[in-house]
């Protein structure tokens, strides 16, 4: 796989390799809603990767740790620990959501349109806008900055979210651009999308990091907001189309760590040859901070599963399906 960029000129140009790559892309009027771009990610596919987080998700898993990814619209994140009470946001907000009460700053979200005016004025970064409209070219400009490292490490771009296929046209365009630039591509998906989109995606996606959350359909409906029939159908479709899949299974104590489900994971992995490995993702509590920044309280919270327990699950699944099974840290 050769890279179209001339790496030797990168340093002189001091502008990443977009100068060489961007002209290859067909321009379109698609824009997407992106809430983060993380470089030097080592967890979401092979090699060194950049992960692009797309906003919007059709599922509502109660343990979700990326809550700013659920809504398809921009949202304001407020980290009160960083606020120094300068009150610049009070003047900036056209809707009067930011108020000075005594010496205290308060933020009432009811009228907030997430216009971002307050975040633009915030000098501490306490207020931040999650969700920016970006063109595929703008995203690729960021992604391709590490093209030399992808080439050296066999890495590339991973789409995550939210659910990337909730913005199908944008997601597919990014994947095609990345493929044209010679990058390895991966999508982290719930699989809750249409068969057509899956078919399209297979042509430009090297690896699907495919969620498998709950085996029992009714319980899936209860815990994730939708049933898993469509998800399983699409998994079968990926198998038929010869895609490469890693199964990703969140393990949330008391929610989906029943023996039935652990067995279910093994069975799915046995059923589909496209599944190369199984990754178990123990529940963690890092999402609670983010929820607080979104002004959400009453969020699901439980203790992460113990190491021994996780190792039991791992070895039993590996023994069942014969595919390498890992615990993600």
């Amino acid at each position, binding site marked *: 796989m050769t890279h179209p960029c001339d790496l030797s000129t990168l*340093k002189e140009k001091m502008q990443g390799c977009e100068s060489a790559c961007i002209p290859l892309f067909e321009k379109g009027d698609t824009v997407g809603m992106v809430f983060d771009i993380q470089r*030097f990610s080592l967890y979401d596919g092979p090699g060194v990767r950049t992960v692009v987080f797309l906003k919007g998700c059709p599922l509502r898993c109660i343990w979700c740790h990326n809550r700013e990814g659920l809504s398809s619209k921009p949202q304001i994140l407020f980290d009160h620990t960083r606020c120094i009470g300068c009150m610049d946001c009070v003047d900036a907000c056209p809707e009067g959501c930011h108020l000075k009460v005594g010496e205290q700053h308060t933020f009432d979200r009811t009228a907030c349109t997430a216009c971002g005016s307050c975040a633009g004025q915030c000098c501490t970064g306490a207020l931040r806008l999650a969700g920016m409209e970006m063109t595929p070219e703008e995203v690729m400009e960021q992604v391709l*900055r590490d093209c*030399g490292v992808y*080439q*050296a*490490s066999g890495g590339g771009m991973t789409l995550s979210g939210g659910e990337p296929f909730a913005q199908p046209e944008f997601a597919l365009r990014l994947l095609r651009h990345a493929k044209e630039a010679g990058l390895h591509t991966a999508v982290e998906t719930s699989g809750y999308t249409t068969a057509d989109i899956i078919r399209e995606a297979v042509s430009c996606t090297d690896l699907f990091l495919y969620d498998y959350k709950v085996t029992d359909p009714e319980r899936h409906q209860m815990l994730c907001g939708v049933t898993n029939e469509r998800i399983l159908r699409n998994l079968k479709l990926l198998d038929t189309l010869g895609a490469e899949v890693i199964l990703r299974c969140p393990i949330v104590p008391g929610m989906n760590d029943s023996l039935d489900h652990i067995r279910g994971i093994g069975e799915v992995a046995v059923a589909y040859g496209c599944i190369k490995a199984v990754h178990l993702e123990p529940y963690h509590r890092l999402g609670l901070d983010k929820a607080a920044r979104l002004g959400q309280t009453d969020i699901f919270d439980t203790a992460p599963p113990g190491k021994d327990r996780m190792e039991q699950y791992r070895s039993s699944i590996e023994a069942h399906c014969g595919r390498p099974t890992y615990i993600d840290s």
Partner: protein
Amino acid sequence: MLDYTSVSEKLVLSDRMEKVYEDILPRLHKWEARESTLCAEMQPEGRDPFLDVFLEEPDTPYVICLAKAIVRSWLVTPVVIHPYEAVVGITRPTYPFLEHFSWGIVDHGYKADTMDPDELRRLSAAIGRMTQLDEDHRYRTAGAVFGPVIEDLKKEGLFTAGDYQGHTIPSYDTLLDLGLDGVLEKVRRYKAVNAHDAGTQDLYEAWEILVIGMSEYLMQYADEAARLAKTDTDPEQKRYHQQIAENCAFVAHKKPQTLYQAVQLMWCLSLWDWVDCLGRVDQYLYPFYKRAGTEPDVIDAEDAIVSIMFKLWENGAHNATLSGCGKDGGDATNELTFLFLQVLRRIREVYPRMAVRIREDADPKLLRLIVQMWSEGMCDPSIVSDTLVIPALQRLGVTLEDARNYATLGCQEIEVPGKCDLGCEDGIFNVAKAFEIAMRGGKSTKSDRQIGAKTKTFLECETFEEVYESFEQQLWHFLPIFTFICDRGQEERAANHAKLLKGIFTDGCLEKGIPHDAGGPIYNYGVVETAGVPPVADAMTAIKKLVFEEKKISKEQLQQALDANFEGFEKIRQMLLNLAPKFGNDDDEADAMACRVLDTFWDELAKYRSVRGGPYTGACSLLSAGVTFGAQMGAMADGRFAGEPLGNTMGPRPGADKRGLTAMLASVAKLPLHKGVGGTTLNVLLPQKFLADEQRRDAVAQTLRHYMRSGGQLAQITSADLEDLHDAKRHPERHGDLIVRVGGFSTRFVQLSDELQDEIISRYVREGL
């Protein structure tokens, strides 16, 4: 161990070497000062043998006295052969400040106030024999040229100049190639050709005395080993002592034939060279190692290498370089490259520090072993880029063949072994202080006196370019003064024959009959350590954007905030921190500013040539200077409080980089590092946790490989976990083996000052670690 490239297996020492290892361990903690670049405990009680010669022979020329003093100091050192060891020779009480630096003895290890009065008289008499050139002299001479402003500059924290110049790498190739008799013959050959005047005659005579002294020293060991062998009752020890006797007697004169002989001779020079830097050990020992494969030696090849490594370890050797290319430019990585790494990995120590040269086509096995060592909590080896360094040396006038042979030394400086008088640094220049002075229109930051060029103050500037111009003018104003004082330092060392021994093993000195520090070597470029560039760049970017472009902060507000050290101006500080981009995030605007600042300084610096004849080049591996200079700085427009450290490498300020390792490396790789080939290093934090699995270790290896070929120069790794650092502050006794990087040093965390410990912890602020 059959495969030295293995990451899963560790080296298993032979029974004999295991015993030597156990024997070394209890000796190690005797020397707390090992970190202070002293090779043994300071001055012993009573008479100092080093001084005797100067007093006994008042009419003998200084340089000859110095040579005799060096030899005598070695010959009166007890001959000690430790049980089971194969390579022999122990360090002596050390006199490095006279021998290697040649500046003021008092206050540099010799304590005038606690010394025996008799001894102090002897010391003064010896000092009286030296050309009296010390710091006072440097600044007095500068004062005569530049006026009383020099006194102000001394206190300003703008630079230190002409102080310290220690390390260079002698030519171990020459030593192993000729043997001591061959070296002596070479000295005499050039003496016959060159010694036309008394000074040169004396110099050659001094060199002869030293080489003969080294032979005598080895013979002392041969004799002692033979004596021990006679009385040994244990047949094994008897055999060992016989071998040592034979080995030392052989290399006392003859050119070494076997690997065992080579490492013994090498250790003798290393000892006499202040256990300084070793150069490319895996290259010059390789022909002997290969021969060992076909011609059996009295000890096996692995034990020979372990033996020399143990000596370097116990005695705190500075630096050894591995891998890189051969004369033809091809990959010179060999079995010894891996074996040296494996021994270091086995002893898990900070000595000798090691650097591995990384080529574009670096052997993946080599990278894998390096990252494995980091993942086990070691900071060594550091890595250095052939891609950048070789052409950069050529820009300094080094030939391609010599450039290909470069090695690292000291605290990550770079030179051609056996051909340079690079030394350590000629001076350290604090670019941030120059900027602070520029903001004040050239006025001192400690008083109201005009100490720099008269330029517009920050408040008088109408545009950002005027601010920048004022900064440039201060640099142009100060650099002639700074380099003038650096030059005086070079003169001092030359006048007092600093590094007398190295002259014998440095190409050019014998041939020209010129001392090591007077321009004798083939290459004489000087090195200026550069402090404060990233904070200045970030301050400039913030001023440009927030004051002049977006007008979010007025000049007056900013000035007030800086004067008040942000007290009552937290909002301004937050704006400076968060609303302007910072170097280290692959942000083109911020990075371009860092490039501009560095270009401005290093391009101007490159116009100056030292008295030795070579150009000055930049460098950045600052040890504690980032802390001491920072302590003398006021608040800065990058949001930095007064007194905070400036950082000790060319990386972003701790915590300023928030976009991950690749973005940070991309930023640094944009810098014109080819203009600072004196050794410009970078701190990279890779906590052990982060390197926990193989996939991540591979990804890190590839990321750094890419950095090395896309414009990076040096990288030094700290792999300690943050929790351990915090715990080590509370319970130092539990964390004696916690190793971190400061400037070019890897060192034990618990031995550092509070300020340096905090500085290291603050690096972890970076997101995700």
